[in-house]
Structure formats: structure tokens, C-alpha cells
């Protein structure tokens, strides 16, 4: 379980990123955060594993507040999956997955790369759980496809049986079928293992298809908190208005999704 209690965050240069976010995500829920780039989604995730400290308010994981004292204990329970995958491309799949349990390995063993037997067993277990084969274990990550690589990232995050999985745009670099594959794995892990999964996405349709709950973030605030069926153009306008629009006017004639698609497309080009 993760809870945010009126969390505020501003950077030393005065830029306010979060402006009073209150949110509680229960155990076993696959919760998706939607919002345009810079809305504060990533900051919300980074608050949970202590990579960012809140300016005011408090974040707690499984009932214990995230502070510099509890950080080590909290990070044990929290696993992260990254947008750029953040794997060591030249290392093998097995090595990458086992680094997920590095905190449980003594320094000497870690330096010579001699992982204990339970960790090696766990590695095989999670690699099969994300749908990779035994023959993948000793392959270099760079030889896998994007979708397979992200599965390695998920396997790595499962090494310590986390209570919380944070996924920062996990499908940003993947094609649609690999994206579905990754999201369905995340959802099944949430439901089966009872993990709390907090996931940032830009793909509205994907979010509607896989999420248990969708939270809209705009200007550092929660602007809607709905189940996927309730998401409509009205709700999406709340998070994607003003996007790339200097005059701050909502384009009424277009549907919000078309508008988003256009602006995103224009942005990418």
C-alpha cells in the first residue's frame, strides 16, 4: 500500500512540481497515472523510493513513512521498472536479473559475481514467470528484442518479492504488441502476487485496457481519479488541455484524443 498525504514538492529554483497530492493505492491494485510530460508523474514515483524528497507532506509505503532513516527498508520493498530499461546491455540476462537482489549479497560475493544459490534459483523462477526461456538466461541483454528486454527489467524488479512496483513509462520504447505483453504481465503480477503497481503512461487506450484505476495528474495536482470505464473526453480534457497551446485555449471541436494525438505527433516531429 502506498499513500501520499498532501505532498508538495518544489525545486530549489522555485519551480513547483507537486501541489498537494493526496492519493492512496491499496495492495494488489494496478494504478495508472496519466498526464502530459512535466505534469509531475515521474516525481510522484520518485518520491516513493526516496530518489526525491517531498518539500511538505508525507509519503508512506506499507504504513511506514519514507524518510532518510527508513529509506533502506523502504527501497527493499519497492522495485522500479524504467522507461529506458536501464539494463546493462553487455551483461547476461541472468546477471541483470540477479542485480535486483544485490542488497542481499555480501560485497565480496557481489564483486566477484558469485551469487548465492537461493538468489540463482529465484532468478530462474522470475525469468520463467515473465515468460522468458532457460536459453535466454546466458544471453546478452543487447541480443534481445525491446519487449524481451523490458521483461528482463520486470524480472529484475521481482527478485526481492516487492510490495510495490513503480513503472515509469515502461512501454515508451516498445511496439504495441510488446506493450500489451508488458502491461498484462504487470497487471497479473499485481493481481497474483498482491503487489501495488503504480505506473505512468502516455497511452490512454492502453491504460483503459489494463488498469484497475486511472489517476489524472495536471499541474502537480490530482484532477481525476476514476475506474477505466469512467474515462471520457471530458476527463481527458482535464489533463491534456493547454498542452503545446500557448494561448491556453481548449480546442473544443476536436475530441481530446485527436487533439492529443495531433499535438503529440507534432511534438515528436
Amino acid at each position, binding site marked *: 500500500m502506498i499513500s501520499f498525504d498532501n505532498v508538495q514538492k518544489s525545486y530549489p529554483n522555485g519551480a513547483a512540481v507537486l501541489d498537494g497530492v493526496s492519493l492512496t493505492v491499496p495492495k494488489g491494485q494496478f494504478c495508472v497515472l496519466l498526464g502530459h510530460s512535466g505534469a509531475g508523474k515521474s516525481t510522484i514515483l520518485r518520491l516513493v*523510493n526516496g*530518489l526525491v524528497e517531498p518539500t511538505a507532506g508525507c509519503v508512506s509505503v506499507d504504513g511506514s513513512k519514507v524518510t532518510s532513516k527508513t*529509506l*533502506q527498508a523502504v*527501497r*527493499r520493498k*519497492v*522495485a*522500479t521498472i*524504467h522507461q*529506458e*530499461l*536501464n*539494463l*546493462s*546491455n*553487455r*551483461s547476461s540476462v541472468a*546477471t541483470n536479473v540477479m*542485480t*535486483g537482489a*544485490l*542488497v542481499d*549479497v555480501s*560485497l565480496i560475493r*557481489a*564483486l566477484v*559475481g558469485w551469487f548465492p544459490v537461493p538468489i540463482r534459483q529465484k532468478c530462474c523462477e522470475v525469468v520463467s514467470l515473465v515468460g522468458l526461456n532457460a536459453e535466454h538466461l546466458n544471453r546478452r541483454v543487447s541480443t534481445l528484442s525491446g519487449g524481451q528486454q523490458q521483461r528482463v527489467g520486470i524480472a*529484475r524488479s521481482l527478485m*526481492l518479492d516487492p510490495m510495490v512496483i513503480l513503472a515509469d513509462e515502461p512501454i515508451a520504447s516498445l511496439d504495441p504488441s510488446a506493450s500489451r505483453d508488458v502491461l498484462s504481465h504487470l497487471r497479473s503480477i499485481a493481481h497474483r502476487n498482491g503487489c501495488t503497481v503504480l505506473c505512468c503512461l502516455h497511452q490512454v487506450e492502453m491504460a483503459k485496457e489494463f488498469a484497475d484505476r486511472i489517476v489524472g495528474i495536471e499541474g502537480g495536482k490530482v484532477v481525476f481519479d476514476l475506474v477505466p470505464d469512467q474515462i471520457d473526453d471530458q476527463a481527458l480534457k482535464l489533463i491534456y488541455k493547454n498542452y503545446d497551446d500557448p494561448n491556453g485555449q481548449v480546442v473544443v471541436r476536436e475530441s481530446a484524443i485527436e487533439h492529443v494525438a495531433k499535438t503529440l505527433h507534432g511534438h515528436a516531429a
Partner: protein
Amino acid sequence: MTLHNTQNFGNQQTVPNDSNHSWHLPPPYGAKTVLVIIVAAALLLISGKKTEIDKMFLLLGEAAGNVVGLNDSSQVIDGGKKVVNSMLPIQIFEVTEISRIENFDPDDLPMFSRIDNEEVTKTVVDPTTLELSTTTTTRSVVYSPVGYLLHVSKKMLETIEIAIWATLFSIILSIPLAYYSSANYTPNKVAYTLARGVVSLLRAIPELISAMFLVLAFGFGPIAGILALAFHSAGFLGKFYAEDIENANKGPQEALRAIGASKAKILRYSVLPQVLPQYVAYNMYILDRNVRMATVIGIVGAGGIGQELKGRYDMFEYGHVATILVMIFLTVFTLDQIAGKIRSKLI
């Protein structure tokens, strides 16, 4: 000119013509560039006078004239001829007087060698009559047809061994130096500044100079050579390693930091796999460099083939010097080939 051509080429209805006329593409070079070139040329002229570049061209011209038969003598050609003549033929065999060999055993001769009798003609001055008299004596020698080549090969091997040990020590020494002098892993500012200082200092002292002092401390021989090379190359490797650690992709490192892994573990699993191919390339280069430098530092008595070279040079035995130079060239060339093969396999 270029702009004009482009306009003709892209003469399309959709592009209004007058807007093109207001465009301005400045020429790539201007008055500023010309000024810089003039100043640089003037500086080079002044410096050239000081470093006798003019004289160099004069001598080279003279040598060229001598070659095509325009003038009779050229300092450069004469000097070169003298060097080549004194070096040829290069020394391959070795003759050792038996009476100079301690505990000589005729049944245990070195490889390919045989006992020979050699006539030695000596001219001596009679101290009483002050007349010159010539006496011919025979002495027994061990003649070995490739003796000197073997001797030089042995020295070359010692040189390579010095280089390998020096490279090994420099790698070990530069790992902690790199850790403390990479801005994103150093524990604090003091350690960072200190480590950067040490790395610069090690690099700043040429190995020839440090070998001179190390010879005083450790005596003549390979120890001084190994240490001098190790210290100097640790200065290089420490800097290269640290810069690669700083420039390594941040993503994988943040992934492990989020899990709660310690700095050492992050370095081992996020940074090392990224930088390893580059590190191997650096180490190969340092080994290559150490072999070349190990031949030089022997000149101040720090072991290896350089010591032999210096000794022969001082005794005007240029045939021997030539053998050594050929050997050094062959070694460096061979090493280059091997290093290239290894590098292409690893990366």
C-alpha cells in the same frame, strides 16, 4: 554563389521569390580568419628562427643537392653515411675468451657454440728501447654464431616482462585512484581533490626522470624500471578510468541505486559492463607504450634492453647498437599486430 545556385535549383511556385532575396548566407571565411592566419604565420616564423628550422631546410637542401650531384659535400649525408657504415654489419655472433669465463666447463657450452682458437696480434712498445714490436699469440675462445642475438633477445624479453609488470601494477594502482577521482563516486571533496592531484602528479613526472631517482633508491636493475613505468602509467589510467566512470550512462546506475545497492556494487554491475571494452583498449595501449618506454628507461640503468643499448653506445660498438634497434623495432611491430588482434576480438 552557392545561394544563387540553390535558388535556381529550387525554383518552385510555392516559395515566394522576394523572401529569398532577403536571406543572407555569410561566406565561410572572413577578415577575422585571414587575420588569425597572418598572426599564426608570424608566430611560426619567429619560433622557426629560434628553433633553427631555417637551418634545417638549408641542410636538407644541401643534402638533396648532394644526392643529385649539384655539390660535393653535405654535412647530413656524410654524417648519415658514417652512422650507417659504423652500424653495418649488425652484430650477431659473440666471441668470449675462455680465460675470462669463470668455472669454464668445455662439456657444457651455450647453444650453437664451439671452442675456437683465435690469433691475436698485439703491438707493444718496448719500455727500454722505445721500439714498436709486434707479437702474435693464440688464445682459446668460445665462438657462438648467434650468441649476441640470443643475448639481446634475452634482454628484450626482460624488457617485455618489465612492461607487463608495470602495466599490472599501474592497473591495480589506478583502480582506487579512479574511484576517488570520479566526481560522481568520490566520498567527499577532499578525497576528490587529493586523488585528482595525485593522478596529475604521477602523469607530470616523466618516467625517465623518476627512473633516475628510483635507481638511486632501489639500485640498478628492473625494480626501478617497473616502478617508474607503473607510477607514470597509473597517472594515465587513473584519469582515463575516472572520466569513463563519469561519462557512463546514468540510467542503469539509477536503477540499482533505487534498489538500494551500495556504490561499489553499482560500479561493479552498472558501470563496469559499460566501460570494460574501453578499459581493455586503454590497458592494451598502456602495455604497448610501456614496452617502448621500457627500452628507453634502461638508459638510466633501470634494467632491460636499454641498459645494454647505453653500454654499447658508450663503447662505440655501433654494430651492437644496430642489433638492439632492429630487435626493438621487431618487438614493437609484433606487439602492435598482437594487440590489434586481441582488441578486435574483445570489442
